[in-house]
């Protein structure tokens, strides 16, 4: 279910705009959501409702940094930026 992804890690630039991949479907769950990528057939867990809200809001902001500021308290920005980077790594997020 969680295969490794050592190859082709996209660089995750928080100054740029990112969005949910058009190949990904999100299924809300109590803990957060499941994200399924129809292309690479990987199932990824979004482990908190805040992360789901953030992911869904990304496309409305010109950069990740601005999306973080609008959605979360400053002390949580670093950990959520890391979570987003992992989602970019799994191709759940794509650069705009």
């Amino acid at each position, binding site marked *: 279910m969680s295969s490794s992804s050592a190859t082709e890690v996209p660089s995750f630039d928080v100054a740029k705009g990112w969005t949910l991949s058009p190949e990904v479907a999100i299924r809300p769950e109590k803990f957060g959501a*499941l994200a399924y990528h*129809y292309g690479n*057939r990987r199932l990824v867990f979004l482990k908190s409702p805040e992360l789901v809200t953030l992911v869904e809001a990304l496309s409305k902001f010109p950069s990740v940094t601005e999306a973080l500021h609008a959605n979360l308290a400053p002390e949580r920005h670093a950990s959520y930026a890391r979570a987003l980077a992992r989602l970019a790594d799994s191709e759940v997020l794509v650069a705009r």
Partner: protein
Amino acid sequence: MPADLSLRDRFKQGLDAPICLTWELTYACNLACIHCLSSSGRRDPRELTTAEAKRIIDEMVEMQIFYVNIGGGEPMVRTDFFELLDYASSQNVGVKFSTNGTRITAENAKYLAGLGYLDIQISLDGADRATNDAIRGEGSYDAALQAMEHLKNANFGEFKISVVITRQNAGQLDDFRALADRFGAQLRLTRLRPSGRGVDTWEELHPTAQQQRDLYGWLVNHPDTLTGDSFFHLNALGDPIDGLNLCGAGRVVCLIDPIGDVYACPFVIHDEFLAGNVRAPGGFAKVWKTSELFQELREPNSAGACASCGSYDACQGGCMAAKFFTGLPLDGPDPECVLGHGETALKAQPVQLLRRPSGDHSKPIPVALVAN
């Protein structure tokens, strides 16, 4: 971020829809494997019609079940098999189907290769003809390899070779691996359960304690091997094998059988684990969300006899089905507990308490009439 452990705890409380839904399309099968988890052979006259099957696929779309594991019986013997495959595909429901390969031809392999959203698992239980055919029946090895040739020639891509680990094939892991490499396939190893006809054969087929330890070591060294999350009972031996590492029965896993009955998992086709039927009002979604059995399975369970064992967090007490069909209490050790607690518990049983599966679709054994 909550840690992974808390995610596992969330999974134990159940999800809004399953992650791993197995759907057995028919009890009909042209083979008679001695360990068949669903005692398949004869078609059941009550099996779902094409329209009812399509309704299940519609429900998967509504519930956002992204993919389904189709099996049987032999699913390809259903005359509407390709129609259902097309229907799922058109609704963006991914299909992974398990087959013995006998119905894969050069022609339909090309067709299957053209369907975008499809995985195929060819079952094989021996790396050589003798080992495989002793379990799956004469000719089944050649048929499976023929199917693999067809898929390879059709450029299907990476299909899966699915092996149930037994005492007889546990020493052939490297050979299975070589076979998979030869076909550009992925190797999938799963655990034998004492389910279906396996109730009668588990005793002689299940791997020895030493074989289990060797298997664990092999899996750790070959992390790209698929396991269907079925070996989490081995995690008491060391670092966990990749996977969810919990019994997902009724929580993230369930089975829809050919007549629409919903069971907690594919390995417990027994009245005690029957949650409902998809033909009832509310369909599958209602069974998944509200059945009493599934609500119960999502309650916190006690570690029971395993509470004092330091490895409980690693192995979670093992497989519910394996315990149930060997007559062990569900809150005790797995019969194949790697620390030996299961073996002790089995020996302590006053009589062997083998439970029988509720249904049996095995073909009748031909009786030779002797004239006297």
